[in-house]
């Protein structure tokens, strides 16, 4: 029997096998196994072997560096949820993913490399300016997450590379907002999602970020819109001006989004709901929540 799978002893061996075979990486397997299954049988893709990497200790660590959190690609979602160094917002997002048993197997590496527009951790990584750490026998690379993901289900990971982890700036926000919209309260794929982050100094908005999931081929973030909103709270803008700027920015967001109809929801619903959620979050950040 020809081996359909390889099981390296360490990362070094994994990188050599990846270079030699271009094999498909198996971290937690929770997406790969479903994608590859047909009528109760699972087969590898077009003669490429599977390389098991979920067991590699080098990839399962969570570490803090000065100013950064580094999450190993194969740390399970459950282990992240239990880890004291993982930010509360990320834990909340993980808690909204799949089910406890799936989270015991699934990894953040898998979630990102699957590159689904509905991938739950991707809006967070994007909003946090997180990067993807890639390794090959040639060395290491660090790629911003939205460059790494090139389209729905597609990444720029080279055939000889392995994602080893994610580097996330440790940065405090005053406002943290996350909402996943799904068919039910547990064990569901996102119809749409949003992550909002904002930081203020003396009532002045110094940082604002919004990332939208499942409303386009890739997770959406717009630095221009964010800057316009930051500017709206600076200077002498009164409430009325801020409201006008907010309305204009939300219109711009609506133009950027390109949601689709599918078996889980409609383009109309997805597009409308994320804008409603964004407005809710931004009104709070801009001090417009309550009628004067």
């Amino acid at each position, binding site marked *: 029997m020809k081996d359909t799978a390889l099981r390296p002893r360490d990362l070094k061996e994994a990188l050599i096998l990846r270079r030699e075979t271009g094999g498909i990486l198996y971290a937690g397997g929770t997406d790969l196994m479903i994608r590859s299954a*047909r009528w109760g049988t699972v087969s590898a893709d077009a003669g490429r072997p599977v390389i098991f990497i979920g067991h590699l200790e080098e990839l399962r660590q969570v570490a803090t560096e000065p100013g950064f959190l580094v999450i190993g690609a194969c740390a399970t979602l459950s282990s992240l949820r239990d880890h004291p160094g993982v930010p509360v917002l990320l834990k909340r997002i993980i808690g909204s993913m799949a089910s406890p048993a799936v989270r015991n197997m699934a990894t953040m590496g898998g979630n990102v490399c699957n590159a689904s527009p509905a991938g739950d951790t991707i809006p967070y990584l994007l909003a946090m300016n997180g990067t993807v750490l890639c390794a090959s026998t040639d060395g290491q690379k660090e790629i911003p997450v939205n460059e790494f993901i090139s389209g729905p289900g597609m990444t720029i990971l080279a055939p000889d590379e392995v994602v080893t982890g994610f580097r996330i700036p440790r940065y405090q926000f005053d406002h943290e907002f996350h909402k996943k919209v799904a068919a039910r309260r547990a064990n569901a794929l996102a119809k749409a999602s949003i992550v909002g982050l904002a930081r203020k100094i003396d009532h002045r908005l110094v940082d604002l970020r919004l990332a939208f999931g499942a409303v386009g081929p890739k997770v959406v973030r717009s630095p221009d819109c964010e800057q316009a909103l930051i500017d709206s709270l600076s200077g002498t803008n009164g409430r009325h001006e801020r409201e006008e700027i907010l309305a204009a920015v939300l219109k711009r967001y609506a133009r950027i989004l390109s949601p689709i109809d599918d078996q*889980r929801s409609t383009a109309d619903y997805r597009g409308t709901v994320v804008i409603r*959620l964004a407005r809710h979050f931004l009104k709070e950040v801009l001090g417009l929540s309550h009628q004067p």
Partner: protein
Amino acid sequence: MTVRDDAWAKCCGKAGYMDELSFPGMLHVMVVRSPFPRAGIRSVHVPAVASGYYVIDSTDIPGRNICAILRQDFPLLAEDRVSFAGQAILLIAGPERDRILEIYDGIRIDYEPEEPVITIEDAEEGRIPPVFGTDNVIASIGFERGDVEKAFIESARVFEDEFRTGYQEHLYLETLRAIAVPEKGRMTVYGPFQIPDIVPVAVSIPLGWNTDRIRARVTTIGGAFGGKMETTAQITCLGALAAYVTQRPCSIVYDREEDITTTSKRHPSRIRIKSGVDHNKRIRAVKMDIDLLGGAYFGSSAVVLDSSVKMATGPYRFENVSVRGRALATNHIMPGATRGFGVVQTTFALETHMSRVARQLGIDPLDFRLGHVLKQGDRTSTDAVLRDQVKIPEIVKSVDAMSGYRAKRGRQAGSDATVKRGIGIALYSFGAPHTVKGTLRGRPRPLILRRTGSGDVVILTTITELGQGIVTVFREIASRILDIPIERISMDNPDTDRDPSTMGTGASLGVTLFGKSVERAARKLKDRWDEPGEIEVMEDYVEPGYLEWDDKRVVGDAFHTYSWGAVAVEVSVDLLTCEVQVTGVWAAHDIGRPINDRLAEGQVDGALVQGLGFGLMEVLESAEGILQQGRLRDYAIPTMRDIPAIRQSFVINPYSEGPFGAKSVGEIPTIGAAAALGEAVADALGIEVGRLPITPEYLLDLVRAKETSS
């Protein structure tokens, strides 16, 4: 209270399910299905297959190419055309699943697609060539009492509404399956069959054998909800055909997607209601037009429709009533028997309509409905005298006490500006058993109590345990009469060679009708207890002598009796996303006097949640004839987090003809949950709901319309 005898084995996963069975040399069978809802088949190309592998088509059928459900119009394997996506065309049998897949990938079928009939409107308009007969009408039934047109003319106000409901998949956790084993000129078929009695009949037709050469042996059933009744005809015939051709034991197990997309489910519906109200704000006349969306063949739609029509007016009395129902054919799989049997849809429509009317009249919707509830001595919509006491007022009182419905209704503040809360209530009834007098359905359905030489008692019947606990209930009934410990009474999964034909479990008959047979048989057995050796007592069911029924005119006692219920549902609605969360469920039922409270409560809990899933989240839509949510990741049923703790009560109202006063419980609690949910959403948002499921996508449309108009 008695603990069910299968509990421990089920905890261990070793309760005799089909997936614990294996036979030497057993082959796997895969079904090759049509990807098109409507197409001619030009040609079928099958690659050369290795020895030990088989590709089977309709020409391999030794008998007639028919899968008999209620009519013999459904080909077991398609010949020159397909009429729904997922229709079976070929079988592939062999020992290894991956080799079967290789064969599957080599098969080429050349189709000539035709325009399918998709919607109820397509079916009634007649622009597209019909799927069924000349007009797509699979069945129609209706009746009128009083003078409806005159009453409308005399009404002060007339209200009209249209309601839509979608498919609901049964979603038993164990998918459909069967193992057929050929031996010594006979065929034994194993599997989870709700009505094992239909298996020998169904299999005899394609094999061209007498029914006595076919034996059905029921394995422990992993959930059914109506989905393992008529649907088992097809899978057992396919398995038996493969076993006949290969002369090997053949196992056919649908995977989840195959089960969702190619087997029966709850009928989608369009229901139009018109009612006329007099100056005293009472309904004088009601006209209901019920259209069920059927499949490409006869299926069991006619039987479901029959129940929809006979139960259409729910627990209410209207002087002038017209009910007309049709089941219309489309190029889809045949929907069929599903818990709540055509009454979930009509109850949602009628409850919502009456509440809307009340709101427009400025009356409390619950008081308005209570004012129309049937009373003992009233005539039902089929013009029979209602003999039983109607305890709907007590039921509503109990639900109100548990839920605080009246205190909460219309005045619930949300937790913040983006959340609204609401509460709704639904009243309902369900008739069972069906009166069979004067119809062809009145065939014998006996069961046997056997006392063995050692003094133990065995119940022999083809009534099946679906998880509802019928085995425990039958044993309890026999134990109470015989006055022997329940442990000495047993009832195994049915075997059609061994057991008298009681025609399986369905239509909420188990306890009321056949539990009574057990009671009568036990009494006779007790009288003969002192006889030596083995004793057998056979009992058929007995209908109460006072029933009158005219099937042609749809007049008389449509049912022996009725169970009654009310459920209140509380929700919170997220105004940003229009997501609905169920925060409270309280129900009360009159099911006579329950035999086993714990089992009866279990039936209520499960049925309520099934009804809430239908109302809230279970989306299964056809796009051009293809069901879109075939995978379990897309067809969402409630998880434990979607449902709160449920509180419930029983209002005791012993039924003189039932065993120890029991009436039926299996289906009734499914009926009102979606209607109550709709009312709760209406209460929270001040909108009117007209469709199930109430998805956030649908609700967003309603909310935006309201935002725009205000």
